[in-house]
């Protein structure tokens, strides 16, 4: 009741004996496959084979495939007809494209391949940015194909509908900032400066960053998923073949909405952060609300506030570009939509942080 083999005069005979249903002896199969190395011909002996199922057919399929790869002559005539037919059917269908795709590439080839992919990505990004700039040009000259209803929907989606989550997270960030600062400042009896710390921190950068990260995860991901799904459903193809500019139709309403709402959301995040800081100051540090307000106003600088707002505006462009770019360049299956969404969020956040670093250095150099 086993699968055995016999190697004689370079002829490998695989002997199937007894009841071989649910055949799962990998060791034995490995031994048969090993012995193919010394064989010129592969035969089968199934005289005493009583019962079998597709597990045996799968094992024979593996053996025959290996033998074919080694150009070994194969004789399956001794197998029962139905088993022979089953294996032949599996061998007959080979839909795998005969391309070099599966060839193992050398290190240099891999490097070259990666280089070409990066180059392709850069080319696509430039094309997207050029198309988007042209779309903006058409918008400002009143020639863009922009549906009012799409714009209003996008504006509402990244406007008042995002206020709740931005409020909550910014409030908590202000609260944490105040709490962490309080632990240190209390030691010097300088806890009143918590108000200054929170006001400067939130207005200069933290409000914008928090609003940006929230909107990248919420709206940027939604842009990539929506447009990606449109790509899967051939809606983007339909737009192209109808001759409608894809960027006007899909990117413009989303980008304009984010550019408009991000500075306001940043401003709102600033306020909520300061309220969070005030909550800690009033409840834990015995600072009165008027005192907190006075110190906050003292620390508040218009330049800091405008820098924060500008960051928000810049993040709006980055998030909408990333979301729409990955949506438009999404593949044609569900997996690609997931990939596009992930890439959109990760890229948005990375580019936002890098851009902030560069901008901060420039502002520092300018003394702002």
């Amino acid at each position, binding site marked *: 009741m086993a699968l055995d083999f016999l190697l004689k005069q370079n002829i490998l005979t695989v002997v199937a004996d007894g009841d071989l249903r649910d055949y799962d002896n990998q060791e034995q199969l490995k031994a048969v496959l090993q012995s193919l190395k010394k064989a010129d011909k592969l035969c089968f002996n199934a005289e005493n084979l009583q019962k079998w199922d597709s597990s045996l057919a799968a094992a024979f399929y593996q053996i025959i495939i290996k033998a074919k790869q080694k150009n070994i002559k194969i004789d399956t005539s001794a197998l029962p007809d139905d088993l022979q037919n089953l294996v032949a059917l599996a061998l007959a269908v080979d839909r795998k494209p005969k*391309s070099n795709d599966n060839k193992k590439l050398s290190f240099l080839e891999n490097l070259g391949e990666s280089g070409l992919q990066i180059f392709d990505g850069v080319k696509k990004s430039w094309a997207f940015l050029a198309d988007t700039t042209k779309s903006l040009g058409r918008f400002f000259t009143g020639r863009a194909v922009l549906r009012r209803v799409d714009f209003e929907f996008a504006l509402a989606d990244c406007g008042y509908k995002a206020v709740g989550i931005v409020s909550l997270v910014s409030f908590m960030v202000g609260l944490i900032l105040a709490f962490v600062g309080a632990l240190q400042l209390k030691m010097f009896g300088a806890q009143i400066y918590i108000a200054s710390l929170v006001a400067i921190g939130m207005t200069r950068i933290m409000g914008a960053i928090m609003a940006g990260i929230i909107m990248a995860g919420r709206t940027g991901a939604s842009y990539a998923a929506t447009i990606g799904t*449109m790509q899967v*459903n*051939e*809606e983007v*193809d*339909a737009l192209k073949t*109808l*001759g409608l500019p894809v960027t006007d139709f899909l990117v413009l309403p989303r980008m304009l909405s984010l550019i408009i709402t991000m500075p306001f959301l940043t401003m709102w995040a600033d306020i909520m952060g300061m309220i969070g800081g005030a909550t800690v100051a009033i409840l834990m540090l015995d600072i009165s609300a008027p005192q907190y307000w006075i110190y906050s106003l003292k620390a508040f600088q218009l330049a800091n506030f405008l820098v924060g707002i500008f960051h928000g505006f810049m993040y709006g462009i980055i998030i909408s570009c990333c979301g729409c770019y990955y949506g438009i360049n999404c593949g044609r299956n569900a997996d690609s939509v997931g990939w596009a969404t992930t890439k959109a969020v990760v890229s948005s956040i990375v580019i936002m942080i890098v851009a902030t670093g560069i901008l901060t250095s420039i502002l520092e150099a300018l003394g702002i």
Partner: protein
Amino acid sequence: MIKDNVKIKAEGLNIAYGSNVLMHNLNFEIKNGDIFIIMGGSGCGKSSLLRLLTGLKSVDEGKIWINGVRFDNADDQQKKKIMQNCGILYQSGALFSSMTLAENVALPLQQYTNYSDALISDLVAFKLALVGLKGYEDFYPAEISGGMKKRAGLARALALDPDILYFDEPSAGLDPVSSKLLDDLILEINKSLGTTIVVITHELSSIFAIGKDAIFLDAETKTISAQGNPKELLKNPPNQKVLHFLSGGKK
């Protein structure tokens, strides 16, 4: 030289994705007013050929003429102009999910004509009625069946009265009755509007019901292995593969 009665011509066309060549050296002509079938097994490159013919994929090698004008190397503006005379029904219908059926059909009319809102509304109602969707103007794509989506997609494709209509697997996912209705609709459009129709399909019933001319894409030889009227090809098959395909694997 393109003959007057030739609507679309392809010469030495290749279909490839990177190093993976799906088809090479495709040569065919589609005559004015014909119903032309592009047939072949799954994965042979039929839909990719449609993407080349509609400019969704750039041509690496070969030439395409549409209405006597070179299409493959035309600039975006020229392509856009040529494509205004072409309607496409995608496999899934490709309706814009955020718009009602009426808005979907109205979109190309709003974009390319100076018609009044009233005329556009009349045309939308007519085109939807033409495909048997009278009364569905205010429905969203998510609210109708697969067959209805395809018919609505056809209404949108017909919006600008195109010279050429492309159909990508029109019967895919439809029951035999809906599929037959769509075939009848294709025949009716061809007969009454004289539209040249290009259909990508592997549905034998559709091929024989509507096809006047056809090419068979052979995945093995990676080129066209038969051309002619589908019924004639079945009677006098040029090779075993065509017979096998057209007989539904029976011969």
